[in-house]
């Protein structure tokens, strides 16, 4: 039988099938962080169950960490306690932790791939819905709840129903200024926020084949925003080259053997998906969102659509936008470049290439937050921080930051923020804040202009 990439990886991890019930799926790597793990550790301790495979767990502190003065004790008492709890739990259970200040610390979905922990053909989970990011490597990776974190601690397995399969094909060549973020915002705007619920999505076609690993991660990252638990892209030369030489990547002969296996993973010609969509790259333009879910996106030059639906109207009222309105020239006081969607080196290169030689708009407060210590270091090595400084921007320290505003990086009530993150839900970036999702290029241009501009008219 012809198999999909997803089938191949899934089937290789089924420990046992329960009649008329779920399957026991083996998990290769379990990533944890401070926010969704303490209750799971507590659960195990209460039941007297040891952590089954501590070597297959990697921990980082990211969600609830400050992005300035990380060398000082964390000011917020609850946050400090949560971080300390993670340290204690990892020590007690023999789990590797890349805590605050460690050279490998960073957002869980940035640090694991860059350390070579993420590899094709693996199953990976984390108590975070954006675990779908790792699917960029041809990995089955998905977010789980804390009860499931405890299950993986206890057994290195999960009980799951096999999801249905979905393939999103985008072929052709992207226009200048159209970034991976625009591709995924376009797909979600077309399909809606629940088109993928119950499915695992594969992204296929020349657009993804031509994309860098960073770009593929941006795309897979937002799979959950159309409801899909995970997204995957077939591993290829780009994937193998990215992994080669990284800290935890297989070395020497083992690497070659792995590559030989990874090459067997792509979907068989003629394999059938439960649902399939096709899009033309030429139709995609730089995107922005205007509402309070990631499906409410338009091409930057388009006007907000008119829908007569109470939820749609509630959303526009929250954003203080009107039906039919254009967002061009909308004044913006806050810009955030960061999050597990867009905080990798490529994202800062794109921002720097636009910013170089220009000055930050006076009305703008901008937070540039690298995804990891390694990204921060590379920004310095490539001299991008100089470009940012000369333009009036200051680079902050790694973490999830204003994506979910658990720390002090909050957007004030009523303010708009053009953000490279993944969610524009009400209050996501702080109580009463209004989020407009966009690519790092659009975000950088907004920070320079102090308003949204039609970036397509400003490209050389």
């Amino acid at each position: 039988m012809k198999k999909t990439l997803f089938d191949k990886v899934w089937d290789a991890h089924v420990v046992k099938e329960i009649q008329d019930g779920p399957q026991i799926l083996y998990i290769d790597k379990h990533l944890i962080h401070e926010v969704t793990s303490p209750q799971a550790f507590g659960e195990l301790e209460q039941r007297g169950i040891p952590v089954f495979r501590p070597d297959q767990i990697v921990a980082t502190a990211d969600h609830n960490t400050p992005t300035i003065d990380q060398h000082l004790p964390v000011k917020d008492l609850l946050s400090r306690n949560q971080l300390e709890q993670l340290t204690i739990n990892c020590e007690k259970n023999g789990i590797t932790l890349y805590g605050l200040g460690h050279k490998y610390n960073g957002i869980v979905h940035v640090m694991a791939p860059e350390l070579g922990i993420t590899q094709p053909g693996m199953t990976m989970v984390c108590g975070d819905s954006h675990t779908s990011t790792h699917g960029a490597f041809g990995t089955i990776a998905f977010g789980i709840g804390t009860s499931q974190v405890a299950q993986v601690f206890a057994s290195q397995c999960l009980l799951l129903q096999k999801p249905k399969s979905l393939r999103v094909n985008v072929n052709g060549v992207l226009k200048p200024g159209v970034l991976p973020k625009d591709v995924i915002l376009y797909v979600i705007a077309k399909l809606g926020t629940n088109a993928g619920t119950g499915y695992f999505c594969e992204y296929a076609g020349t657009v993804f084949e031509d994309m860098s690993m960073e770009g593929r991660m941006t795309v897979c990252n937002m799979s959950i925003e159309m409801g899909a638990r995970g997204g995957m892209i077939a591993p290829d030369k780009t994937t193998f080259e990215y992994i080669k030489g990284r800290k935890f990547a297989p070395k020497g002969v083992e690497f070659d053997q792995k590559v030989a296996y990874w090459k067997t993973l792509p979907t068989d010609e003629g394999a059938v998906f439960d649902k399939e969509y096709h899009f033309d790259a030429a139709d995609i333009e730089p995107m922005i969102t205007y509402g309070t879910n990631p499906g409410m996106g338009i091409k930057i030059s388009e006007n907000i659509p008119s829908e007569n639906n109470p939820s749609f109207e509630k959303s526009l009222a929250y954003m203080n936008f009107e039906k039919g309105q254009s967002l061009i020239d909308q004044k913006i006081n806050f810009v955030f470049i960061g999050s597990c969607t867009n905080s990798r080196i490529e994202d800062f290169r794109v921002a720097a290439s636009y910013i170089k030689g220009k000055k930050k708009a006076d009305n703008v407060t901008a937070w540039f937050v690298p995804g990891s210590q390694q990204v921060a270091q590379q920004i310095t090595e490539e001299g991008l921080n100089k470009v940012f400084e000369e333009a009036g921007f200051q680079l902050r320290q790694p973490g999830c930051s204003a994506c979910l505003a658990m720390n002090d990086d909050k957007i004030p009530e009523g303010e708009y923020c053009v953000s490279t993150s993944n969610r524009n839900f009400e209050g996501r970036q702080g109580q009463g804040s209004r989020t407009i999702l966009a690519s790092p290029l659009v975000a950088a241009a907004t920070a320079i202009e102090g308003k949204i501009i039609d970036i397509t008219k400003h490209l050389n």
Partner: protein
Amino acid sequence: MDIFVKLTSTAIPLSIENVDTDQIIPARFLKATNREGFGKNLFRDWRFHKDGTANQDFIMNNTTYSGSILVAGDNFGCGSSREHAAWALHDYGFKVVVSSFFADIFKGNALNNGVLPIQVSPEYLQELFNQIKKDPNTQIEVDLESQKITILAIDSSSTFEINSYKKTCLINGYDDIDFLTSNKEAIQTFEKERI
């Protein structure tokens, strides 16, 4: 985990679509290291104004409506995987959430905490909203054994799907950890054979 077999209750109608887990429990309340006490911050920014006073326009602050069933618009629980959302609903006193569609991760989290997510057709959901708004004392019966939800006053029923494994878990109060750890031998064999 709580046992769930049968429930008869009034319901609170939350006719908003795409309710995300950031609304159910905002991120700033995720700093706790235990599972208790999230109920007071359930739908925090819809229930309360920034100064802490109750937002009287929000349905949960309307004393006409009460009960341990939440009836919500399409695509309930989308967004973040935070199980805190299920804990908050449970802690507040909800035992059932009815919608025409649920996000995957939320659905799993709810089931793992003894909160039953019931998916019904958009038409039946509308009927529920209409009946509850017409008469806030409308009694709704949920019977897990027969997988049936009924608006008692008008005897209008709808069946719902649930996977038989999860149904057994809810009826008996079992959870997945018990089941997985009882399969340790199979897991160890799997580990050995794949190397």
